[in-house]
């Protein structure tokens, strides 16, 4: 567990709602939930959530810190916005779910084998290297995300899609050698670094 996590536990001892309000995007809204259940019932991925949003909001109030932050639930959110459209209280549920996921990751509590979390990291690493998404590498790393055997199987299954993309020039095997990039990779990376610093400073101030 990270120092940062320990630091937060001590700071908000016993008041997870306050912690969420201060550290999670749109966390201020959590207390507005009236527990009607419409969000959970409207989510197309609903049955796959360990704790649907309505329950998460109650758990926050009930101080179930570890249970929530280590849960795979909020990683299930696909940003379809059904819940936001229907919540009678206007809670920005989608944003809160992403906020919780981000916070859990920052604290080092996000579930290690959660596919959404893993893919998000792959995507980010892939994109920030050159400023352009390398479809070939991203695709392959996605296939092999769950081990070599799985990867071969998926690659074979997706073969036709891959060939189709090659034919229509949506992908080229040359991408394997570094791949295309944006004009100023250094500049982009400097920018991202600066953003990271600003974010760190902001968290430091808030947290």
């Amino acid at each position: 567990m990270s120092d940062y996590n320990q630091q937060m536990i001590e700071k908000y001892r016993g008041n997870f709602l306050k912690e969420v309000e201060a550290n999670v995007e749109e966390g201020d809204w959590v207390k507005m939930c009236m527990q009607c259940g419409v969000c959970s019932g409207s989510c197309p991925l609903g049955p796959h959530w360990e704790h649907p949003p309505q329950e998460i909001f109650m758990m926050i109030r009930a101080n179930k810190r570890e249970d929530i932050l280590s849960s795979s639930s909020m990683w299930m959110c696909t940003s379809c916005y059904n819940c936001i459209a229907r919540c009678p209280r206007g809670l920005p549920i989608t944003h809160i779910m992403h906020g919780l996921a981000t916070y859990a990751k920052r604290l080092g509590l996000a579930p290690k084998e959660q596919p959404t979390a893993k893919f998000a990291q792959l995507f980010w690493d892939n994109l920030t290297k050159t400023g352009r998404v390398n479809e070939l590498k991203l695709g392959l790393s996605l296939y092999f995300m769950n081990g070599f055997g799985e990867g071969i199987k998926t690659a074979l299954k997706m073969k036709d899609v891959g060939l189709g993309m090659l034919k229509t020039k949506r992908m080229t095997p040359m991408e394997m050698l570094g791949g295309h990039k944006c004009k100023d990779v250094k500049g982009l990376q400097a920018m991202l670094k600066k953003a990271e610093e600003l974010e760190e400073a902001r968290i430091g101030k808030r947290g």
Partner: protein
Amino acid sequence: MSEVIATNQTILVVGGGISGMTAALEAAECGKQVLLVEKNPTVGGRVSQLYKYFPKLCHPKCGLEINLRRMKANRNLRLMTLTEVTAVEGEAGNYSVTLKTSPRYVNDNCTACGACADAVEAEFDDEHNYGLMKRKGAWLPFNQAYPFRYVLDPRIIGTPDADKAKAACKYDAIDLDMQEEETTITVGAIVWATGWRPYDAGKIQPYGYDRFDNVITSVELERMMDPHGPTGGKILRPSDGKEAKDVAFIQCAGSRDKNHLKHCSRICCMASLKQATYLPEQYGEDYKGTIYYIDIRAIDRLDDFYQNIQKDPNIKFVKSKVASITEDKETGNPVLHGVDTEGYHRYSNPHDLVVLAIGMEPSVPADGFPMEVVINEEGFVELDEKNGAFFAAGCSSDALDVNRAVQSGTASALRAIQVVNRVAGAEG
């Protein structure tokens, strides 16, 4: 029409529902001159469309009967039906009000024999029954209508039906030359009691009121219970006319929702609990009721009523706002989907019939008042000094049950009386 005489000591009451009738009667019985205007052909308002009243489960008919008797007996009270207010100018103690009266095409010779209705062929949606059945182009709005006189629908004027109606009437009561009239009067104070209308259920997209036959509203269920209503007093499924013995009620349909009405409509919890008693009344012990709710708002003395329903083993309470409804094509059953709050269980429950406990929306749109008045974000008229001598009563002021609507009618009458008393004092 006879000339309307009113002075700045007259109180104008707009809307002849239970709150408007109360306000008008209380003021008139205190000796004040009162003019009551109602846009429909009869007074009575929404309570005349209810089957029973909570909490006593008595029939609204007797309350209405008493009020009508008081009205007939009072010489200070004058009634204009088919009349709306189109403009108001002036200030407290001295308003100039313009009224527009639509023609009834039937004068006071009418004995309500009904010969005109028999003669006319054209039929229209019956407003009193929320369009669940048809009525003739010459009709009596309902069997306790007051004035107890028939009305001709303007849509038959100029057609052979109008002439048939005229020919059928033995009392020379039909006057096809009646015209719309405009009247300007002076009054000292205005009580606004135009009430409410059911929220448009079709706007609650996930519930499919406009797509599924067996999803109805609470106001429609009240009409089904009326022996003279569209189903002859039976709870029947619109899709196949079969008895609905497994009925679901969805609370807060259109209320407490930032996408619809923001306010709690206050009466719909009690209305569904009341309607749950309609099931044993119809089916003895062979019924099932399920109430889907966020929280049940049966306050004060009404809590007893709630507790009694909770004791009924055939009525189930599910703490959950239903997320969506689909339809089982084979059976026509609506299927309710959601997650409950007591355990977070996901459900998909079929029922014979779903009743949406529909919210109450104030009747007059915020921008539709004939003068400038202070209105809150829910569309109800505030009690505010800026409104001068314009006082809201009943559901124009808030979502109220009959008991509170009557109290509010009396309160507004008192406020209006104070204004006209001041005027009288000043004039010596």
